[in-house]
């Protein structure tokens, strides 16, 4: 639940459909956008998008990274054959963009708009701040916008104001001023009603009298999904370029989406010796901090948390996933599992532990084989019962379990488990 990047293809679709409602003369059409994935059938694509055969095209990767021109990842002014060949040559290839390396697997195609780069590229962006949104406008856009940042004019739109009541601070757009103002105001309305937190069109240009957005970057607030269902359609949130989710991370994400509770898992180092299974969004960060502060960051295997009174079944599935990951590869030094957490406000500790205990019992043999030591620290409703159950499990599980309650500082178990600072 947070701000998430969306594909340019999706962003433009939302924008074109939405702008059409505000500016009847707007020419951008969401039908003239096509997405190509590894399994896209070119024949079907052309059948669904006949314009691909009739117009000059732009093809580019659509995977949440920018500066595609600088990295030679733009195919401009191409016919369909050339564009498809260009995409095919790059599909599933690994490239490095800036510091990030990843696989190209999604491209978008749209009609090509010829224009004079220097004179006719403009810039607009809108970004959310706590008390206002800022509109950034420049008559110099494209890849030069950063160099010309002093030309960018800013307008703050207070959160309680309507864009209609705010005077736009605009650079010199000459005769296009009124037209651009209308466009920016419409854009802002769409930004606000569409749950966007960041929207950048760099550049937009002109085709005759029409404004044409070229490259677009957008982030939306995914908690707005329930309000924006109509605008967004079936909006996908791709992983950032270069980051891939493991099967287990996807599984936990699926659980998280299905329940009212919160379940998160990121595997940092599958060979790591230190595994955390921590309750609470805040506490989980502190446990990870403490492992790093003690000098064991290279051995920290995961970040994750469960919170919001998850059901026994949820914690069982969560624990099973973590235990499975941590018992795949043996380490001669053994491993450490920290079942940590603060003092819960309303999460039933005994109930959540019931799920964890069930999973621990199931993985008994593997835990022994991997020489796992378990440290528990928790408080909150029914914690005495929960801790007692953990202690009793220690009698039969065959691996050591040390159990602590609120009398012990929350993160003390980390240094106990790791044997102090490295």
């Amino acid at each position, binding site marked *: 639940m947070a701000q998430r990047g969306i594909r340019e293809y999706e962003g433009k679709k939302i924008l074109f459909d939405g702008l059409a409602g505000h500016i009847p003369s707007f020419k951008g059409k969401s039908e003239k956008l096509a997405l190509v994935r590894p399994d896209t059938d070119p024949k079907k694509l052309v059948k669904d998008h006949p314009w691909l055969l009739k117009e000059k095209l732009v093809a580019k990767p659509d995977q949440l990274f920018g500066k595609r021109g600088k990295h030679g990842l733009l195919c401009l002014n191409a016919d369909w054959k050339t564009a498809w060949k260009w995409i095919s040559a790059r599909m599933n290839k690994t490239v490095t963009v800036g510091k990030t390396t990843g696989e190209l697997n999604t491209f978008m195609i749209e009609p090509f708009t010829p224009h004079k780069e220097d004179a006719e590229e403009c810039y607009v962006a809108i970004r959310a701040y706590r008390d206002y949104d800022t509109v950034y406008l420049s008559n110099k856009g494209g890849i030069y916008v950063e160099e010309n940042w002093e030309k960018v004019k800013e307008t703050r739109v207070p959160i309680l104001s309507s864009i209609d009541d705010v005077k736009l601070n605009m650079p010199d757009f000459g005769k296009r001023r009124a037209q651009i103002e209308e466009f920016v105001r419409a854009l802002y309305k769409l930004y606000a009603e569409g749950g966007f937190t960041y929207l950048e069109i760099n550049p937009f240009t002109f085709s005759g009298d029409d404004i044409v957005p070229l490259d677009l970057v957008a982030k939306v607030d995914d908690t707005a999904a329930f309000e924006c269902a109509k605008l967004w359609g079936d909006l996908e949130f791709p992983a*950032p370029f270069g980051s891939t989710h493991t099967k287990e991370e996807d599984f936990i994400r699926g659980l998280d989406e299905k329940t009212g509770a919160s379940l998160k898992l990121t595997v940092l180092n599958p060979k790591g010796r230190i595994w955390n299974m921590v309750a609470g969004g*805040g506490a989980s960060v502190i446990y990870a901090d403490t492992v790093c502060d003690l000098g064991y960051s290279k051995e920290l295997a995961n970040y994750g948390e469960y919170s919001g009174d998850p059901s026994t079944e949820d914690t069982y599935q969560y624990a099973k996933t973590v235990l499975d990951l941590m018992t795949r590869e043996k380490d001669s030094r053994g491993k450490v599992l920290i079942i940590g957490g603060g003092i819960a406000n309303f999460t039933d500790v005994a109930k959540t532990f019931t799920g964890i205990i069930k999973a621990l019992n199931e993985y008994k043999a593997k835990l022994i084989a991997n020489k796992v030591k378990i440290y528990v620290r928790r*408080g*909150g*409703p029914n914690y005495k019962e929960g801790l007692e159950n953990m202690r009793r499990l220690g009698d039969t599980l065959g691996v050591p379990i040390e159990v602590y309650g609120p009398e012990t500082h929350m993160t003390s178990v980390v240094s106990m488990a790791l044997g102090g600072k490295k």
Partner: protein
Amino acid sequence: MKPELFTKDTTAIVYGYHTNAIQRMLDFDYACGRKVPSVAAIVDPGHEGVHKAFFGKGEILLPMYKKFADAAAAHPKADVVVNFASYRSAFSSSMEALEHGNIRTVAVIAEGIPERRARILAATARKLDKMVIGPATVGGIKAGCFKIANTAGTYENIVESKLHRPGSVGFVSKSGGLSNECYNIIARNTDGLYEGIAIGGDAYPGSTLMEHILRYEAIPAVKMIVALGEIGGTEELRIVEALKAKKLKKPLVIWVTGTCSKMFPAGVQFGHAGAKAGSDLETAEAKNKALKDAGAIVPDSFDDYGVKIHETYKKLAAKGVIKPAEEVKAPSLPMDFAQAMKEGRIRKATTFINTISNEKKEELEYCNMPISKVLESGMGIGGVIGLLWFKRELPDYGRKFLETALILTADHGPAVSGAHNAIVAARAGKDIISSLASGLLTIGPRFGGAIDDAAQHFKHAKDSGLTPAHFVRDMKAKGLNIPGIGHKVKSISNPDMRVTQLKAFCRKNFKHTELLDYALEVEKITSSKKGNLILNVDGCIGICFVDMLHSCGSFKKAEIDNIVSMGCLNALFVVGRSIGIFGHIFDQKRQKQPLYRTPYDEIAYMTDL
């Protein structure tokens, strides 16, 4: 706005019927020795009337309203709203509360409120000079005064963390879970908490760390401030500026969590929505350093957090700035019945025994047999009667016999008293249950009772060793008709085919037919006196039923006696005949028959006699 949000007299309207949270607020009140419950009213679109809750050892009634405006009008002193509405409706309900003249503070619990909505809430609160705590928070607590919702968890925890009486420390954090942990740390290292607020983990909380820290700065009773920041956002940098500008003079112990993020790949989203560094300035390390440089007391890691808090407290106490708060013993709260039961601390005699079915198992069970197996086995309704009435899996012939009995007793035309009464009731416009009951209520010694009577009498005669002739003589001497003997039209020479078939079935399938054989001997005697004094269908069912139980072999004699004497045969007749009675009821309703009135010529008016 005034720095103090809550006093010992503060009361709240709770939006959302969250009984556990409400009870915890009231339990806290009891711990503090509050005279007035902190919950004035409950608003829930689906409920009105009153909610009964504990207030200490006794119970109180809290009024419930469907509309917030009604609750606010009826409880003008309540100036806090604790809003449990879901992420979908939390915005509109919080705005309504915020804009109401009575309300000063709104705590928004829901997680997942759209950021833009949260920003509007925050800005509206500032415009109106009011306070929003949350969204995505557990709330907050003012020790000894007022507690929001589930903050600080159980009663035991409240007492252990000394939250029932005020100390000298003001605390604020993003995380609700950690705030409770920190109350514990503060209780162990100082004279206790004065007030603690969890602002919530979202990117745009309604009120910020800074706002609460400035409040604590302005409250004289707060002697030191403890805060917990988090990676992401620039909120802590505002605290840095306030420190530099000397707007904060009280000692501030603060730690920003998320120092591990440098080890993580870019794009890891921590548990809180706001917990993601957008730039180097927003990292935990940068913020911790800036805070330390500006004069805040910053530990090296969370491990030392308590130590720094303790050192700071000790210094203030030594200087006399803090006069340690007095220890006040919290009253012990009677344990909740359910909790005590769960922990095995008490036991309670039950009022019912049940031995036939269990809906609390993984799957519904009839006499220990899962319902899926009941269906798979194809035991039919006869088998189910066996399980639920006799607690046995009956053999095939037993189930078939019971089903045959149900078929044979299902109906006997509209003229008999049961059907007649049901028809009259149905035509009076009564519902099907009333109509059925009106028919069933006629079943007894004169109508439908023959099956049971026959079984009882024949079984008793045979069990007492009476010969058939002796039995017939005995009954005659008592002036009683033998139940199950006699038919209006059928006779030895014109047998009732129902009886013929039933007898053949039992002879073929039962291991024993002793009581049937006995009854047929009786029939020989009675029918020789009069041709229509034959074993009728009621008698045959009752008598063969006893033979069926014997044949099964799994019933002890005492059990069979008990089954017959409990009236199981009457029950069999009631189940069977209900089918027919419903038929008659539906028949009348289908034909839309009007109210029935007995014609005058059916009644002999003899009033003048």
